[in-house]
């Protein structure tokens, strides 16, 4: 059943990284409840362009919850009120006629606003660059099942690998800590045989890169609630343990 609702949007507008930002209120009338949140913003933008105004800058790519490009703080909640979905998977049927919606970009010192709702998330790329990979010799494809992986291990690693790197965990965290992102990216490799060779070097490098850009985890658990992939904070605990082990093991390496 499709219906149309009228909304009042309070959107963060900021002309550039160093410009002063402010909220601007827009009336968004006649929005189909079948529209996704991003499609609703598209409609608003088309109307702004027709009226000769600057459209609202926001990021999006796949629009099916797998790329991690979109991400908005909607009414003070990362990715909006629906649990376990990205902003693109949030539909306007989650809202009621006459609702006021506050839309803000992710906020953290290491996520500077580029323009309006788009932020620079390259600090997360720096964490991946520090060790979020495995090094293998390429060549002929190895035999299937050459490296046995227990089903439970594969499932757990995949739970961590579901991370799309959207940054909602940082946005939702009262400390702007990137612990859940980093832990997911560390653990999906640390749990598997292919990740063992670089396990301790990876853990130390990625955690310390994270600490250079983001705050310190105080175990609120907000990240787990905000995560569109519902990645549990258990991975954070395991990374904390791996990190101390890494500090012990890595010191013995002379090379």
């Amino acid at each position, binding site marked *: 059943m499709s219906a149309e609702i009228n909304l009042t949007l*309070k959107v*963060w507008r900021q002309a*550039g*990284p160093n410009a002063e930002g402010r*909220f601007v209120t827009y009336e968004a009338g006649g929005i189909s409840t079948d529209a996704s949140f991003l499609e609703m913003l598209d409609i608003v933008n088309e109307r702004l362009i027709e009226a000769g105004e*600057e459209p609202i*800058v926001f990021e999006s790519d796949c629009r099916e919850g797998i790329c991690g490009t979109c991400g908005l*703080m909607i*009414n*003070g*909640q990362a990715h909006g009120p629906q649990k376990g979905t990205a902003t693109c998977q949030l539909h306007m049927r989650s809202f009621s006629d006459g609702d006021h919606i*506050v*839309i*803000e970009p992710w*906020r*953290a*010192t*290491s*996520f*500077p606003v*580029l*323009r309006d709702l*788009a932020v*620079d998330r*390259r*600090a997360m790329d*720096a964490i991946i660059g520090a060790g979020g990979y495995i090094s293998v010799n390429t060549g002929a494809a190895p035999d299937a099942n050459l490296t046995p992986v227990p089903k439970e291990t594969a499932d757990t690693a995949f739970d961590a690998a579901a991370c799309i790197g959207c940054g909602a965990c940082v946005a*939702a*965290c*009262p*400390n*702007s*800590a990137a612990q859940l992102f980093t832990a997911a990216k560390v653990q999906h490799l640390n749990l598997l045989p292919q990740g063992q060779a670089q396990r301790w070097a990876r853990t130390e490098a990625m*955690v310390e890169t994270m*600490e*250079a*850009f*983001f*705050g*310190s*985890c*105080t*175990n*609120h*658990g*907000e990240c787990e*609630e905000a995560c569109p992939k519902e990645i*549990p*904070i*258990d991975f*954070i*605990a*395991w*990374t*904390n*343990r791996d*990190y*101390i082990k890494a*500090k012990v093991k890595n*010191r013995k390496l002379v090379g």
Partner: protein
Amino acid sequence: MAQAITRVSAPPPVRSEPKIKLPWPLSIYQTAVGKKWVMGLTGAALLGFIVVHMIGNLHLYEGPLEIHEYAETLRDLGTKLLPRTWLLWIMRIGLIIAFALHIHSAYSLSRMSIAADQRYPGGRNYIAANFASRTMRWTGPIIGLYLFYHLADLTWGWFNPDFVRGDPYHNVSESLSSIPVAILYIVANTALAVHIFHGTWSMFQSLGVNSPRYNHLRRYLAAGLAGIILVGNLSFPIFVQAGVIDDNGRSIVEELQHGTAEGEDH
């Protein structure tokens, strides 16, 4: 239309490398996760003390002589190996070090988080964060200030004109019979219980003690410990106010020491 997004240079780190790189294992404390480990371990030590301290104080309900004997027993600990009060002092020094590290790690991690965080002018909607987790930076200093008052009041006797060294029953009943002091103890111990509720659970995460099969028990343990500490510690000011703990201003221990006590019971 001027649509081009201006690319800023890579965001500068919010936390700089330590100026002096300490040798291992002290270098672990120079990292945030290492500080969280120290916070968790020192928290566990302090929590152990708080539980034992509360249970020990229950001797107040046995009577003035019994709590006096308990206090003397603590001073006599390890006297077969060490001079009297040495073991007690070793434990006290351990607690002082744990307390100092707990405060320092909390202070420096808070500074790091405050530097990394930006406010949401439109407001933030908390889902998982509870009252306890969000007030750690308030309950902590409250406990610190209270601890100073508590030591000055019942260990050093600064604020109590009738203070008798070595008579806890007398000192507690003199001190807590004043309503403002009782309120202070109630407020501070409630803050302590709230701090313990988040701290106990948080400790397991920080120390990486996590096994999905048993994880739900961590919340029960946190709630149980906070509850036991709350009930035990609040009972003292409440029962002094109610007149259950009351020595009518006479110090049995002082009378014993001066040989003026008559009979065993009164």
